[in-house]
């Protein structure tokens, strides 16, 4: 029996996996424990995978999601240099796990079959869990990994339950056949509804949507900053891509079953995320809750998935969000390395005392809030509200509007603290290692991209499908 493999889909993932193995091997045979030894092959593999991806059709949604996954992972790899010479962080394992998870994300986005989807979901989840707990001798990290693991296992189990029901109804797990199977009028609606909702659960968990959001603040807070950055962007991108593909390709006929669920989940998610973020005193905690809120914004246009914009809008929003979020996390990783804390009080006056890290953080915060001068944030907010209104969900659009206001409350707090007068002289690390500069340059590049996109949002909006 030959299994047909579409190499334009599987190619990038294979390259990334190969890169993961090389990174692990390099570290095993040249155990000098420097970050570059395994980081370099990882970078090369990601770039090569990007090249392979570009050979395919650039106009499709999986392409866009894959591109975001690859670019996000590359950013994380470069910015992770900040952890160089941290003895507790083994670089070989780190890059191996990171790239494995990225490969899982790539496969998830390209999956056209539920078995592939579940396998890819696990390939993304398991290395992510290991990444969270990777820092040696860190009890908090281990606890976070456990939380993550338990939540992940439960949600996967629920998904598998849904999948088995779907298989029972439609007799196939291939997306195309599922669609035809579910379109059959003899299929009982109630069962379909249950099956679909259960299946979607696993993906909503990865996305961090309510009620599966509780693991996010705990996990982000306990792990390395860049791993949190990875989870909040790459992992979310993969989950969103898979979810939208599943809903639009396999389950359009069960539209009535999932559409209200998606709408309500999106509304509740953004509200709870924003309310949670209001009370945070740590920048990471703030970004963790904000990433929950952003998941709501990402999910909301899915109610309009029947229209072409229902797919376009989340991709464009995701691109803007991922860039801003990665810049913020990378800047915080640098702060953590140089100052030892990411508490909001620690950040006071950073835009004045350390403008090269402070201003990008301000910019990222404003982008996430959707506020000018970070026009790109506002434009992408406009973009996600559009399909929601178009599909006559004005109530959801109003909820989104109110959440823009709620979100501003804490992003403004972050911005104000950053712009405030610093208390006394800021702590300056006596000799920041060169590798920190690499991370800093990643932050600056990202911030530069945000500025350029704010001036010409067209660049982003016309080049994504």
């Amino acid at each position, binding site marked *: 029996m030959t299994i047909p493999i579409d190499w334009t889909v599987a190619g990038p993932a294979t390259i990334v996996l190969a890169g993961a193995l090389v990174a692990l091997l390099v570290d095993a045979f040249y155990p000098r424990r420097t970050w570059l030894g395994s980081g370099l092959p990882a970078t090369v593999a990601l770039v090569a995978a990007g090249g392979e991806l570009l050979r395919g059709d650039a106009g499709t949604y999986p392409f866009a999601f894959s591109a975001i996954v690859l670019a996000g992972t590359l950013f994380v790899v470069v910015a992770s240099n900040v952890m160089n010479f941290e003895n507790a962080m083994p670089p070989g394992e780190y890059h191996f796990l990171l790239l494995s998870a990225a490969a899982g994300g790539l496969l998830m986005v390209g999956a056209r079959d539920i078995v592939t989807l579940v396998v890819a979901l696990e390939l993304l989840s398991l290395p992510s869990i290991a990444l969270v707990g990777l820092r040696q001798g860190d009890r908090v990290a281990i606890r976070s990994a456990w939380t993550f693991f338990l939540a992940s296992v439960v949600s996967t189990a629920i998904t598998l339950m849904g999948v088995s029901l779907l298989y029972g109804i439609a007799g196939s797990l291939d997306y195309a056949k599922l669609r035809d199977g579910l379109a059959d009028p003899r299929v009982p609606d109630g069962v379909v509804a249950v099956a679909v909702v259960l299946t979607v659960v696993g993906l909503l968990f990865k996305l961090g949507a309510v009620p599966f959001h509780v693991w996010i603040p705990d996990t982000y807070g306990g792990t390395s900053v860049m791993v949190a950055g990875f989870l909040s962007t790459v992992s979310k991108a993969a989950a969103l891509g898979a979810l939208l593909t599943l809903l639009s390709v396999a389950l359009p006929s069960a539209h009535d079953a999932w559409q209200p669920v998606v709408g309500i989940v999106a509304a509740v998610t953004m509200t709870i995320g924003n309310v949670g973020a209001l009370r945070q005193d740590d920048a990471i905690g703030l970004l963790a809750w904000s990433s929950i809120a952003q998941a709501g914004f990402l999910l909301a246009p899915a109610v309009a998935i029947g229209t072409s914009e229902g797919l376009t809008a989340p991709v464009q929003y995701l691109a803007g969000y991922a860039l801003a979020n990665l810049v913020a996390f990378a800047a915080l990783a640098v702060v953590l390395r140089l100052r030892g804390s990411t508490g909001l009080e620690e950040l006071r006056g950073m835009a004045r005392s350390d403008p090269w890290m402070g201003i990008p953080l301000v910019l990222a915060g404003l982008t996430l809030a959707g506020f000018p001068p970070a026009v790109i944030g506002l*434009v992408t907010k*406009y973009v996600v509200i559009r399909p929601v209104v178009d599909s006559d969900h004005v109530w959801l659009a109003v909820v989104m509007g109110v959440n823009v206001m709620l979100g501003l*409350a804490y992003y403004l707090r972050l911005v104000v603290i950053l712009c405030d007068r610093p208390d006394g002289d800021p702590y300056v690390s006596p000799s920041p290692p060169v590798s920190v500069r690499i991370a800093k340059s990643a932050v600056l590049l990202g911030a530069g991209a945000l500025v350029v996109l704010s001036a010409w*949002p067209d660049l982003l909006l016309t080049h994504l499908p």
Partner: protein
Amino acid sequence: MIVAALLVPALVGLLLMIGRRLVRGRTAAWLGAGAMTVSLVLFADVWEGRADVSGEVDVSWIEPLGARLHLGVTVVSWPFLLMTALIGVLCCLWLLADDTSPALVGLVLVISAASMGVFSSLDLLLFFVFFELALIPMWFVIAWWGSSTSSSGAGAAHQSRFKNGARYSATRFLMFTVGGSALLLVGIVVIGLDGGTLQVLDAGSASLAAAVLVCLGFAVKTPIVPFHTWLPDAHSAAPTAGSVLLAAVFLKLGTYGLILFSTVLDRFEDVAPYLAIAGAIGIVWSALACYVQDDLKRLVAYSSIGHMGFVVLAISTQSSAGLAAAVFGSVAHGLVTGLLFFAAGSLKERFGTASMTRIGRGLYGRSPWLAVTFVLAAVASLGLPGLAGFWGELLSLRAAYEVGDVLTKPVAWTGLGLALVGIALTTAYFVRAIRLLAQGEPVPHDGDRDLGRREAVVMGALVVAIVVLGLVPALVLDLYEPIRFSVAR
């Protein structure tokens, strides 16, 4: 030309913020005044006549959304633009002092530039971008340079609490406004989808949801009762230049927005009666609130709500007289309330408080020119004929009397009746304020000092503008020719 008029203050403002350590406060203020003068001259010069869109700039911006960088000066926006630029110049001149922070001048410039951007946008998304752009700088102006109104004495412990008070007011202002503008954003999305275009001149929407959302959004900004609660705190907590900008320019973003969007929204007529009544209630409500105020800045702030009530009442009639009344009322309010806030700011500088009982009576004897200016501003604000405030109110009443196309007679005349009651009450509270401050036996105070040169220039300019507009209202009203003003000519 419009681009230059917007970019010059914005860039100078940014440079002042970045290079705040390199320039002295006085130099920064001169630079700011210069930049705003450039804008003023450019906007005055760009005018090509009321039939055209003057100085139009139309460049492709965000192709997939149909948003364009579309700027232009229309017959409605021109008076607003000139007023904003003038107020910007005066605010910068006001800041001519050695202890001025250059960053504050920079923020004032950015706020003015963003507001002028709103007035000159002919694209809805661009309008919204400018609309939001001014908010965060304004937060900083209020929170960092403002002071809480309940300030009684100086002292380190008090200072920090006042700062928090100002910060609280600033945050409340921002949250209210952003809440409103979030609804506005959804409204713009609806309009964009309905009419298939975001260009103001072509757009149109038959959706009731759009009309409701947009009007709610601007109701917060204008503000219309019951969404006004952010205003007194923010205005009284802000520093003088900030109060002036808030009252003269920011509130106009709301009224201009209502005027602009009422042309786009087909279902505006369904919302108009509610606006008319809310505006009229605002006139009475604010007058009653003013009557019990002791803090002069709060009094002026509340009086703004009343003036905005007249403007909203005029807009809701949707007649050409109403349009002229709305524009004239907005511009006049900008000048008059600007002058009132400058006068209140001068008093606060001298006496450390804006409380009328603390400042004491008899300003006529203690600092005559300041007292005269204040009284002139007050009577202009209560609508004395011959001064700018009169025409806006009179035309609003006339528009309401004539009912217009969208209101019904009972609604319009109810508004008219309330407005008349409001005028009487307004007179009462301004007379009370004049009696408390200007008249009576002088009680000498250490802070007694008449107008300095800087204050005299700034207030003098506004006084001239108010008198000229009051005597020759045709300067503005001629722009809206189809109405023949038998009274105004």
